[in-house]
């Protein structure tokens, strides 16, 4: 596999993004996707068979690896994290959907998913359901869905989310509660 990207490339892209360079986003996302994937695998490899992962840890490590902290400001860091949160959402949902496809006999072979993780199947269904509901929420109230992406898929704190979305922490806190209520109702009342 390709070696990790040199950090100043990503830093440069991040800065370019702030200056409104549109192509920067398209180049940043795949880079983040690869980096987060790699970090997740390496973490599991390093920490053994029963280790689990934490989203917050993954994002922060990606930041440390990819971005030259001395050259960016706090605001850039927040934007980076928000972007990473969106990317995490893709990674998790892609993995969940592909697992579900395999499970249902799509693709080439039917494989058991349940070895060692009895409730995994249920969690996969839940998370895909949540992602679908989140897509509906985005159509309805984009702002709330962004908060969910940061807080849930990015594991970001209220403060980090506030900085990334450029609103007050209190607004984030309320939005997080409202969004959760909205999603839960959407799922339960379907």
């Amino acid at each position, binding site marked *: *596999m*390709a*070696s*990790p990207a040199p950090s100043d490339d990503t830093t440069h892209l991040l800065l370019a993004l702030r200056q409104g360079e549109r192509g920067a986003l398209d180049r940043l996302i795949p880079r983040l996707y690869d980096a987060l994937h*790699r970090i*997740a*695998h*390496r973490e*599991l*490899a*390093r920490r*053994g*068979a029963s*280790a*689990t*992962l*934490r*989203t917050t*840890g*993954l994002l922060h490590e990606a930041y440390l690896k990819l971005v030259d902290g001395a050259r960016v400001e706090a605001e850039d860091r927040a934007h980076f994290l928000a972007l990473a949160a969106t990317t*995490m959402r893709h990674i*998790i949902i*892609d*993995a*969940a959907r*592909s*697992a579900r496809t*395999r499970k249902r006999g799509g*693709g*080439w*072979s039917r*494989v058991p998913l349940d*070895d*060692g*993780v009895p409730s*995994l199947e249920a*969690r*996969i269904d839940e*998370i895909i359901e*949540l992602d679908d509901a989140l897509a*509906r929420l985005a*159509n*309805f*109230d984009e702002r709330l869905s962004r908060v969910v992406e940061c807080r*849930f*898929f990015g*594991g970001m704190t209220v403060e980090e989310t506030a900085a990334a979305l450029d609103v007050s922490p209190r607004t984030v806190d*309320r939005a997080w*509660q*409202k969004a*959760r*209520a*909205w*999603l*839960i*109702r*959407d*799922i*339960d*009342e379907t």
Partner: protein
Amino acid sequence: MRPSDLDPERWQRIDGILDRVLDAGADDRDRVLADACAGDPGLKADVEAFLEATERGEDRFEDPAKVLAALIRTSGVVTDEGRRVGPFRIVREIGRGGMGVVYLAQDTRLGRYVALKALPPYLGTGEDAKRRFEREARAASALDHPNIATLHEIGETSEGQLYMVFAFYEGETLDRRIARGPLPVPEALEICIGIGEGLSEAHRNGIIHRDVKPSNVLLTGSGGVKLLDFGVAKVAGEELTGDGIRLGTVAYMSPEHGESGAVDGRADLWSLGVVLYEMLTGSRPFTGPDPASVLRSVLHDEPVPVTRLRPDVIRAVERVVARLLRKDPAHRYRDADELIGDLRAVRAGELSEIGQEEREPGQAPSTRRLAVLPLRDGTGAEAQAHFVGGIHEALVAGLGQVRALEVLSRASTLRFRETDLSVMEIIDALDVDAVVAGSVDRREDGIVVTTKLVAAGPERELWSGTYRGRPDEVLDQVGEAVKAIGAALGVRMSASEERRIAAPRAVRPAAYEAFTLGQFHLDRRSPEGYAMARKYLERAIELDPEFAPAYAVLAETLGSAVFFGLTSPADGLPRVRSLVERALALDSDLAVAHTAQAAVRLYGDWDWTGAEAALREAIRLNPSFAYAYFLLAEALSVQGRYEEALAAAEGSTALERYVPFSAFGPVIVLKYMREFERAVERSRSGVAFFDDFWQGHWLLGQALLGLGRVGEALAACEAAVERSGRSPLALGTLGLAHALAGRPAAAMRVAEELDRRGASEYVGASNLAMIHGGLGDLDRAFDCLEDAYRQRDMALVHLADDVSFDALRPDPRYRALVRKMGLPEAV
């Protein structure tokens, strides 16, 4: 209303109020909410719906990275097609297992296709583990043999992920082959020789495989056998602990591996023995609900002999399996070459007595086929015949619980009750290794049971024993005798077997006597027999309400009456169900209770897999219980698993070849498989032997209908109707035969008889359905099927595959009903 259905303006208002309420302190919320929604209860309700929802679903917002971690762990490293691993481009996934995911990949340097195995992420942990892995893999890559998959190279990705690159072979793994059913014996032997030769080469080079199992054996299209994954298990094994050990792997693990982990090449031979067993029987010799109990079984249990599950396996093959599965490695084959020698000899048919000469003095063979002859009634009193029979039955049942013994059923031996044959001649006639013979005397002060064990060969009395006691100690006596006979045969009993066999329980003599009478009448397998058996068994329960076997045998009696259409399922099965529950509550180790439970699940609940599970439990408890194999054949064929069903039916025949029921088991399965030629052939020879058994003629008639030989079918059905005293089951098939023979008037007369009798007795409506179907009156046929469905007519479980319903197949109502019953779609 779903939140996304709210109109945007409404949401704006709700959103604003929610902000205010959420901002308010807990005490203040009600007031803020009331103020904001003053005079608009609908709005208030909308807001409250959201407020209430903030309290639920916490667990849905758990860190999603946990799911990601689990997904990565189960899906291996490379998740995207088209991704690269080192110089390899992933094409697609071709398999996965405990040791990682295997991909078809292309080597971008050479252009050739390879099988790339990505090991689980946690195997890359630590430099030591990596070095060991490299060392093992390097040694394995030096092996160059047609039966060993070529290992091209090993590598590590930049993430520290280890992978192995093998030559790619087209083919399928042996586990998938076995999943389709047991293999023909010659093919199984061929594969076993192939694996053995691969192992021989590896062992010569000092490499132990350690993980020989079907998923590690690849069968290539050209008939080749390739052993995969040398060296992986050693490295992996050091990393795996606790729940990392997988069921599939433990099942093939040798006792010494499970106990100490210290192994040599003979551990691979054990695993190969398990593989051979599984190829021959379709099932594993050591099983359990979790790895710990599988391991316990590996360490302590003797497997059910191969020939029991697969009667067409010659005993020479069975002996090879048994020798591979010896607990002590010193008693297995010395090495793979010795094994290959034996397998080649078997294949060439040179040796039928392999292993005989290897038996050390005083050492028993792996399995013993045993018959308990009817005990001589030493009292000469006619009135005591049933009592002597009861003790006979108890001996048969007790010995049947010993896994290493194959014990012929009581019914198989009854024809030797009065015989001029010598013991040796009987041993020959029954083809057994030994017989138990003896007598029962009943005196004023108690009972005296005298027994002896006589082995084949020059007449050899291996053991004899005399037991005295009060009648209520009879069961204890039998337990003692069983243990002593086992010991005399050199059989190793597991602790659980000993416990089951010993289980002494005093029973009231009068209850036991009534019980043995009930058993005696059940064995007659006739309508009067069932009625009498029921009477005595109910009496036994009345006398001793804690006597579990009485409940179980009564359940079997009532279940059999349903099976033969004497009682309606609606009347019979609820009672059977409660009797089974009672029997199992008193003694969960009663095989006959599990069998009766299976019948309820199969015919009453239409729960095929539940029935199968109960039967497997019954067979585990008493591997010599022929009726359990018979019902297992039913439960499997209902699921469309015909090859396994046939093996089970053959198993029941092997145990009870002189009991018509069991003798016809394979015919029933062949009929469902639509192998009518074979079914006719087998039932013709069965009928010649058991002319009185009306079901034999009936089955013959059905098989002949399947071949379109209607004239002969009519004759066979007439014979069945006559011998059964006009059973509705036989009449249904007779009516169908008339209809197919172009004799509608005769068919209608049969239908009318069934209709008429239905008013006063139980008549399964499926019998009418098949006649009307044969006459082309489909509407009427489906009306009858609807009735049958309501009756839970037991013939319906074979709606999908029974030839009697062929005329109904093209109709959409047929498929709808098949689906409704949860049967596999019609063949």
